[in-house]
């Protein structure tokens, strides 16, 4: 099969747009959080400054190969996920590298970064890292379950694993979105979404207050920079997936920005409104509320 080399610059372009969008969005959300808490908040370019600073720093210590690999895995996961999912529906230019695989690839690639991060943090030998990892993994696996169920429900509904095909079916209009044709699946997926965004009430994994911030503690300088980059890309990549599956996808960049912002805001608003869960509480919460929804969606579809 001849490879269309133009896909590479196009994909990089997507990456660039999404990265910047993610950076701004993150800052905006920090700002909103602060305002709700009656604080002033950071300036909107603060993240850029941090990132540039971190990229500029050089580290003199390393804990070993796996230690390097943590951020690498992490960012590969984020970038890969973004590239495996077509960003703009109908646009050859922004369909990225989705020829490599379908929905299932995206679903499983989500784990890639998690695995790598956990491994890398583990290498550091910091006990808090281990605690953070166990909490994180426990919660992520529980949170992913309803999502997987919802995804499968959607696949069942449309009888395909191709993301492009799924978006195509939803183009008929507002009401043809999965949100309305399969509300249970969307509900399950959105609950899962809350968990996987690492925002309150499910952010005990990062636990900035109780313990010295878990895995990232040991990472600094360029390592941290890679992770910050990922924090800009990965949520967006994930939201793209949600958007494509449940909210009709995006046929153009403006729609894309709007929908991504809206979906992101859901998790932010919930996070601002609710207190934090302990991990076993959140696992139970997912099993009690989200999983049954997912199961129902599969059974009823």
């Amino acid at each position, binding site marked *: 099969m001849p490879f269309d080399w133009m896909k590479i610059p196009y994909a990089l372009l997507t990456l660039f747009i999404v990265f910047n969008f993610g950076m701004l969005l993150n800052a905006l959300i920090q700002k909103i959080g602060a305002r709700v808490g009656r604080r002033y908040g950071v300036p909107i370019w603060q993240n850029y400054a941090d990132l540039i600073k971190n990229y500029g720093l050089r580290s003199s210590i390393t804990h*070993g190969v796996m230690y390097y690999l943590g951020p690498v895995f992490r960012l590969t996961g984020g*970038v890969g996920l973004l*590239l495996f999912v077509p960003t703009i529906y109908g646009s050859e230019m922004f369909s990225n590298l989705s020829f490599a695989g379908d929905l*299932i*690839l995206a679903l499983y690639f989500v784990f890639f970064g998690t695995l790598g991060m956990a*491994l890398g943090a583990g290498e550091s030998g910091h006990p808090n890292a*281990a605690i953070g990892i166990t909490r994180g993994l426990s919660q992520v696996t529980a949170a992913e379950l309803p999502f*997987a169920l919802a995804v499968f429900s959607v696949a069942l509904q449309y009888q395909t694993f191709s993301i492009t095909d799924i978006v195509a079916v939803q183009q008929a209009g507002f009401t043809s979105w999965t949100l309305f044709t399969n509300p249970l699946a969307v509900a399950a997926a959105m609950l899962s979404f809350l968990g996987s965004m690492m925002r309150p009430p499910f952010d005990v994994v990062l636990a900035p207050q109780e313990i010295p911030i878990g895995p990232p503690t040991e990472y600094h300088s360029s390592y941290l920079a890679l992770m910050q980059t990922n924090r800009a890309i990965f949520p967006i990549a994930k939201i793209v997936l949600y958007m494509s599956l449940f909210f009709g996808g995006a046929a153009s960049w403006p729609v894309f920005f709007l929908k991504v912002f809206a979906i992101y805001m859901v998790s932010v608003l919930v996070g601002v409104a609710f207190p934090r869960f302990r991990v076993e509480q959140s696992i139970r919460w997912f099993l009690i509320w989200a999983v049954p929804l997912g*199961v129902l969606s599969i059974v009823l579809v």
Partner: protein
Amino acid sequence: MVSALYILAAALGAAFLLGLLREERRGLAYGLTLAALGFMTWVSATWVWAFATTALPPVEIFTAGTPPPFAINLRMGMGEAALTLLVNLVGLASALYLKETLLQLGRRAMAVLLIAIMALAGLILTRDLFNLFVFMELMAISTAGLILLSADSRALGAGFKYLIVSQVVSVLLLIGIIFAYHVTGTLNIDGMAQAPALLATGIGAIAAFLILIALIAELKPFPANGWALDIYESAHPAYGAIFSAASGAAVIFAVDKVLPIGGAAWLPVATGVGIATFLFSNLLALPQTNDRRLLGYSSVGQIGLVLAVVGQRDVLGEAYGFIAFGLLVSNAVAKAGLFWLSGTIEQRGLTAWAVLRQRPLALFAFVTFLCVLVGLPPFPGFYAKWELARLLAGEGRMALLAAILLGTLIEAGYLFRWFGYAIKREPEAAAEGPRMQGAGLATGWNRALPIAAALVAAWGLGFLWGDLSGRGNLLLALPLLFALAFLVLDWLPAWVKNTLAIGGLTGFFLLTWQEYDPLRLIFAAIFLIGGSVILLASYETKGRRIGFYPSAMLMYAGLVMLIRATDAFGFFAAWELLTLGSYFLILRGKHSEPHALSYILFSLGGAFAILAGFALAGQGAVHLPLDGLAKVAEPLAPWVFVLLALGFMTKTASVGVHIWLPGAHAEAETDVSPMVSGILLKAGLYGFLVLLMSMGSQRLHGVELTHVLLWIGALSALVGNLMAVFQEDAKRLLAYSSIGQMGYALFGLALMNHLGWLMAIMFIINHYVYKSMLFLSVGGVAKRTGTRDMYRMGGLVKLMPLSFIAVLIGIIAISGVPPLSGFGGRWITYNALLDSEVRLPIVILFLAGPIAFLYLFRLIHTVFLGQLKDEHRRIKEAPFWIVLPQMIYVAVLLVVAVVPGLVLRHVDNYLDRFFPQGGLEWTGTVISSNYGYWNPISIMVIVGVIFATLFAWLLFVNRRAQPVKQFNIVFSGERPFRPETTHFAWNFFAPYRKALGFLTTPLATRFWEGITDLLHNAGDLVRRLYTGNGQTYAYHLLAFVVAVYLIRLGA
């Protein structure tokens, strides 16, 4: 040929002649005794030979020159010849064994021995009822005499108890005989059986009852058999051998010939009494701790089994002799051998047999006898059991078959537990004072010889029965012979044997690979080539490694024969062989004794379910080709399906019958764990494939059985994974993970669609590769660190980088994260799911998926990452031979990840035969289904490029960074409450346990423990019946008589 009467005459003549010798001439007397027994044996042997080689009809022997029924007549036929040969041989061997005792006690003891053997021969030969009574009295009295050979003072009491019982028996028998005579006017057994008047009259019926019940009472039926057990326990082992092997055989033959007197109505009675005895004896044997008493229970049980078979002779037809004799000689040879062996062991506890470990040959004899007794291939009992099951099922007597199999299972339970003690336990505190070598062992050539003879006889009879079975002799099967050859070659150094083994496996594959269809080829490749790769790791073990290669090769032989089997018999035989081989392998582990036991029990239970399933499917047909399963008709088919599936589930360790697996796999040796996990488990899946290919889906009471399998598969996946998450022991973790993986594969098969099967195949291949790899890796780590507890390890990545890479790759592969081969499995899974109608089990499967990720992560994290333990600072990488196969696997995983089509494509095409719809499209590097697509090479490239770019950049940027030592930081967050809990890896997923721990309640373990406890307690309770009071035994006997009578009245 000499008249059979010379057997009797020689014994009597010699016995009387002994009286002429002076007491001092004991050597001469002993010689005379041996000569007489030798002559008797020779006479029997010539008859056996004559009957076997020529079509000689049975010979009638008249006495007093008068034809029957007016004079006593004897008969010599094949059965008589064989049995007298057995009796005489056992007598001869025991006489040899008893040399010291006989020389010490003098000619009187020798005379009693001679007459005892003579009485048994007479019991077999005579056709006259009263003559039978006389021989029985002779047997009883000589028994009472021979008990005295024992040095055990309690034997005297046992003898008296026996006399009491035999008095009651003879009263009943005499009354029965005289009234039977009154009604029929004859004492000839055949004449009486043919006399129509006997059963027509009330008197005749009662007379027949008394005769038969008296004879049956001599067979030690439950519960009227306490006396026999006391004899077994206290008698000299050589007499134990006669009592079990010869007396039992003779009396059962007597019952067999007298049974026609009672007519058809007595057959069910014999069966009922027999099977009750079989079941209860085995149950009661469970709590025994005295070896001879245990053997006694087993003997009583075995004779009960033969009695049950005798009662089934109306349906067994021509196979009756084959079956009954098969069981009889199995018991005879094994019991004689075991009793003789017990005479070489000084203490009576079961663990005392551990002294056998000093003598490999004796140990080999021990295990041979146990296998003979349980009826494992290639011994006669195995063939007999197969035929019995076939015919019983053909007649719809499934309840009886179930009872027989249950009893056998219990028997296997205590016998193999005993074997485990012998292999693993330390003998009880040795007798006081320093002992020279061979402590607790008493041997001489005259004791070794009979044992050796029994050993040879066991194998010889196995060969003979294989020959007679008309099913292909297992002892001629090349793979089995290859495995057995390692018994002979066991003196060679391990590396030579290892090379031979690898050569044999690969050679056999190269010779035969063209014979298999793609599905079988995959299994053949895993079993043979895969087996060879794992065997590479065995080069690591130095020395001779006695016992390893025969066991391992036995397992491989079974596996090969399994895929080469075309009919049910071959399949089942192979199944038992591989079970046996793997049991020995597992038992080799340091602490594996209880686990090996539960493994063999579950496996045998499963094997018996398979046996019952095949028997039911065959409906009595002589040959049942495997594809003949497809022709099984409706009301039976679902039951056949259930039984077979149950059997296969024990091997794949599906949830509910999984409890044997974790221990067995975890405790096995480093190179054995991958064998029993990566390879052996596939046998069960192969069974499922065969089952589903031929029978398809079945409905039972409206329930789709494959749907049930789906649930079981999904639950296994969930439970296996969840249990794995909470293990502290690395190998246990992997073991539980196998349960989950097998659950996935089973799930795939049960989907009953194209992709489902493809998924299962993918899992089979993947699981072999990564589980073998992980077990080797973890095994290597355990070898270096000396522990398997993960919380005792950590930070090994720098010290054992190759092992780490293997684990890392394995983990990515198992968890299904792209780009490695596990993802392909997941992708096919999803497509298969979309293709099927099921919904709910999918949910369970989904739940299991992320959990797999958890335990795998824990494995790699806690072993290789985190803090390095102080005591592990100087650890080296795992030995070369253990790392080598791992690296091969890594390569394989990478290749399979990039070009899965290499194998899958062929299987995919082949599966079109079964499921024409829903296959995959293979266009270029893209693999697509009806629902989606996947391009393994692209994924690999994309991920690789991004990954490499970032990694290179990071390395470049931080090129001057220096590695720092890890340091200890105080704990926070988790409160230590036990020493090991201060380690962060302890209770790694604590929140998960808090949330989901209830799912891991060991329900199945509790259930099976409950069952075993119940059996034990029941056995313990019931055996209180045997108070040891001779009078009570008389009560039992009378109660037995009255009960049987009342039951017969009621029926």
